[in-house]
């Protein structure tokens, strides 16, 4: 039996257009060509401007999509400036939880051991999802540019390159991109409220390929009990 499917030309064009947009190659560069070498002090000031002035508790929904499917749940992160956080995520219907305490780019503990690596491939990318940038490691070249309300800067090391672009104002945004030996590890785009707290964040990992979306539900100024820095299971 022959099956005939009638396709509306207009709909086909829209569909093909959408498909082409979805298959678009990597988004544009984070750092403009015009970026110039900048001082360590400049970069330190830019980084500081992304760090919350006091302890913050962010609660969010997360959705991870990859080729196998998607999974989502709830999460919370407690940020203790300048460089510490506790992350907790839970899957739906008690399907599992993961927690970690991270200081800078080093985990103090993670439970389970792959709690962070299952979600994000790199610590600067993880911090960027909460609207926070990391200071440069030693021995890297620094470049940057200030253009109106946009700051863009780059740390270029022997193998790793970290780039940030941050726009302030009513519709603030932070973009972070990390490359290793030229290969794109991941890119984060975080939209920010005028007080720099995160509203939404998207991590794209092209190698997987995978996408992690965070939708922030609430932001609370908080003072944390010291017990939160201890592992869940002693």
């Amino acid at each position, binding site marked *: 039996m022959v099956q005939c499917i009638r396709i509306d030309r207009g709909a086909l064009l829209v569909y093909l257009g959408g498909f082409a947009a979805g298959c678009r190659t990597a988004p544009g560069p984070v750092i403009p060509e015009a970026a110039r070498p900048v001082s360590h002090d400049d970069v330190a000031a830019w980084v500081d401007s992304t760090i919350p002035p006091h302890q913050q508790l962010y*609660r969010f929904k997360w959705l991870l999509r990859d080729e196998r499917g998607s999974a989502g*749940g*709830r*999460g*919370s992160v407690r940020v203790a400036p300048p460089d510490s956080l*506790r992350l*907790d*995520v*839970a899957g739906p219907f*008690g399907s*599992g*939880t993961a*927690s970690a305490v991270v200081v800078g780019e080093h985990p103090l503990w993670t439970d389970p051991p792959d709690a962070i690596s299952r979600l994000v491939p790199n610590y600067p990318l993880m911090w960027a999802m909460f609207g926070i940038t990391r200071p440069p490691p030693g021995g890297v070249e620094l470049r940057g540019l200030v253009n109106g309300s946009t700051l863009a800067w780059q740390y270029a090391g022997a193998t790793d390159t970290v780039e940030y672009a941050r726009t302030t104002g009513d519709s603030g945004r932070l973009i972070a991109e990390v490359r290793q030996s030229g290969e794109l590890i991941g890119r984060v785009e975080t939209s920010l409220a005028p007080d720099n707290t995160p509203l939404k964040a998207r991590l794209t990992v092209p190698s997987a390929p995978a996408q992690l979306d965070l939708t922030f539900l*609430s932001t*609370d100024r908080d003072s944390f*009990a010291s*017990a*939160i820095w201890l592992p*869940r299971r002693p």
Partner: protein
Amino acid sequence: MRLLSGFLVVLSALALAGCYGFAGGGLPPEINTVAVLPFDNQTPEPTLTQEISRAVREAVEQRLGLRQATEQRADAVVRGAITRYEPDLPVAYTGSDSVVTVTRREVQITVSVEILDQRQGKPLWQRNGLTVRGNYESGNEREGRQRALEDLVVNIVEGAQSQW
């Protein structure tokens, strides 16, 4: 005089019956010690584990009159899981059609709890999906959480007593 004595006898009997009735509630008399095990926290709210343990301990030690013991020696163990935490469900609003302000919110905590008789190997009381609530003025989640934990204590005490 005789009438008064009779009245006092009846009154004493009623009082004793009342006391007996009260003592008869709660856990079986052979259950004197308890171990509260850390709840499996399936929520992204790390501080809940400790707060729930504290509330459960208060329920079984102060309200049900049990003594704390190690898991190996305890007559009973309390164990469970925290399966859901909703920190800020809106419950009261003010405002007009265009601007609505949430004035009160509610914390909801859902837990599964079991009090297990270790010697008999049987549950003395259990509740799955027990949701406790505490409402609070917007911006004061701690108050709501405290109320929800008090609700949990009441539920455990009433639940355990109603079994016997």
